[in-house]
């Protein structure tokens, strides 16, 4: 089956086969990243605009890097330089970008649903680089890509996502991808940040760290934001760490070969102890590298490329 999507908006709407296609394409691009010349001409002559209306260094750098590896020209706009701070609407900003003959737009926005909104307005592909608390599909793709590299099939594997699930687009995208792969997903953390409503997405909700971590094959940590404490979501960072921080003792409950993941940036000593973040089971930096390959795959496929022709690209 050829790749037919123009946009990448959510993992919820992708089929298992489509995720497979992206992963296969990313695997081919990852080989290219290992060469001395890390660049392919696949998107030469194309212009990609990174419209980052919410601050992000990591994701933006990864998209930048991915576009450059594909030989595209890249323009990045961030929240402070974009005209939306001067009262211009998202529609006007996006239509201007299209009128400047951009070929593709990558958007990061604090409002959920804004990539879908743009996809209805624009004639060029729209890639979601994170929309509010909704989805972060390329993160979900790189996370599951990394898991498959280490574990092979994810069917029946126990994956634990630990931390601020309620506000996490990373958690949502991972949940959609992992449940499609047949993994058993448990979300765990304080009940204020891990509400029962998530059961509707096909996951197990737990507030008991020990039973959640027992025999898990993957533990994915999410960043704990200080603002949540002042918003009354939990009493203090100290109490959070005391109950849910990942330390050596707790990590021993995991399957010995389990991998430890984190989308970054890490609060060392809050959601995870330093020795674990830097330890043998940590794949945190691999996630970063895979993020380039996965984003290359997404940019390439959504601009009309086909999975099987990657290597010749």
């Amino acid at each position, binding site marked *: 089956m050829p790749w037919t999507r123009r946009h990448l908006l959510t993992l919820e709407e992708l089929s298992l086969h489509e995720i497979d296609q992206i992963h296969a394409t990313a695997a081919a691009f990852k080989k290219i990243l290992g060469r001395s010349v890390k660049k392919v001409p696949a998107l030469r002559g194309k212009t990609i605009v990174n419209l980052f209306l919410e601050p992000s260094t990591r994701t933006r750098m990864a998209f930048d890097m991915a576009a450059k590896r594909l030989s595209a020209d890249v323009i990045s706009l961030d929240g402070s330089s974009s005209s939306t701070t001067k009262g211009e609407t998202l529609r006007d900003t996006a239509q201007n970008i299209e009128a400047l003959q951009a070929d593709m737009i990558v958007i990061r926005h604090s409002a959920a*649903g804004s990539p*879908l*909104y743009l996809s209805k307005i624009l004639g060029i592909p729209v890639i979601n680089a994170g929309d*509010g608390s909704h989805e972060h599909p390329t993160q979900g793709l790189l996370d599951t890509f990394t898991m498959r590299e280490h574990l092979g099939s994810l069917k029946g594997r126990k994956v634990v996502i630990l931390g601020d699930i309620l506000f996490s*687009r990373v958690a949502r995208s991972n949940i959609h991808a992992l449940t499609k792969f047949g993994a058993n997903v448990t979300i765990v953390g304080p009940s204020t940040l891990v509400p029962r409503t998530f059961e509707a997405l096909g996951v197990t909700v737990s507030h008991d760290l020990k039973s959640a971590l027992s025999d898990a094959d993957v533990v994915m940590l999410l960043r704990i934001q200080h603002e949540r404490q002042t918003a009354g979501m939990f009493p203090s960072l100290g109490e959070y760490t005391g109950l849910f921080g990942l330390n050596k003792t707790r990590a021993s409950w995991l399957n010995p070969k389990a991998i430890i993941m984190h989308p970054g940036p890490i609060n060392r000593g809050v959601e995870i102890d330093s020795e674990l973040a830097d330890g043998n089971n940590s794949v945190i930096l691999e996630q970063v590298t895979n993020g380039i390959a996965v984003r290359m795959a997404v940019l390439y496929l959504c601009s009309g490329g086909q999975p099987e022709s990657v290597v010749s690209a």
Partner: protein
Amino acid sequence: MPSLWISNARVIDPASKRDAVGDLFISNGKIVASLSSAEKKKAKKIDAKGLVACPGLVDIHVHFREPGQMHKETIETGSRAAAAGGFTSVVCMPNTAPVADTAGTIQQIKDAIARTACIKVYQTGCITVGMKGQALAPIGSLKRAGVIAITDDGDCVQSNDLMRRACEYAKMFDLPLMDHCQDHSMTVGAVMNEGVVSTRLGLKGWPNAAEDIIVSRNVILATYTGAHIHMQHISSKASVELLRRAKARGVSVTAEATPHHIALTDEACGTYDTHFKMNPPLRTEEDRIAIIEGLRDGTLDILATDHAPHTDYEKDKEFDYAPNGILGLETALAVSLEILVRKNKFKLATVVDLFTRKPAQLLKLEAGTLADGAPADVCLFDPNEKWVYDAKAGFSKSSNSPWHGQELRGRVKTTIVDGKVVFNNGKISA
């Protein structure tokens, strides 16, 4: 003004317990039992075969945006939209700009009504100064200026103590309080119902508990002070239950439901379409059914539209940033007939009652009946006509309707105010 002779209509007037095919006579702006044969000869005849003739509909919850936001709606355009929807009396909320918290502003609005409205438009005043929830508005002066109720709609008085004083003070003037029940501390940043759908969409949820808590508060204050508190646009199952129990005890509370809360659920927000963004938000199927049952057993007294116009460019935004609210006047009857009569087996006369006698009685308006001598406010509608609603071709200045482009069943044909035809066959004739 010629006398009117409406013949062959199914006349439904719950106020005078009339539901039969027959004639309706109007003379000098009033409903009359019959016309003399000389008058009949001169009368303008309207053959209403196949149509229902009922009292002009009454909506006690509309936003006409004048003064201050006349790019969205004016009293003139809003009253025309109302006439096209079969309404002959509407009650405006005071959250205009400036808000209607002084006698002077009320007078200004009344002047605009006298100049431009084609139906009867009534005004409410604020409960608190500037709708800020901090000090009582000059409720006595507002009453003298002609308001028929007070409300901070769009907002909700958060201080229980101030709400208590408002109840005591307003009772002195026999003024009902209308309340938009929302605990603000629980809904900061909320844009839709909190639940499974908001979880999936990653949107900040508005828990029904925030409504239920204020409904409980108001039941307690109505009990304690004896004031009449009317709960606006009830959206949750638990609130319906709280009201059912309060009414069984004889507490002086009343409540309304909107056509959109009986027709739609939060699933409609699934594509981030801002035409489904409103406050209170669309809730779950369980809530929707509870509201319909509340209307069936009288726990919820009436239907009201919460007609809330916004321009296209204001709604054309990220879901988080779009304003709350949708149009309601031109679709209210058709939507209610579909949901209540066709899908939930309500009697046609019951729905007419929810839109006529009951809201008129609630705010003591001289409306809502076709009894002999009553003002000749009449709505003629075809309960079965199918039509496609084009919000852009409607009479409101705005077109923010979730029903735009959809086929509806039940169409208003003619609206008569004080014996004068103001709307007929798709055209305003006022």
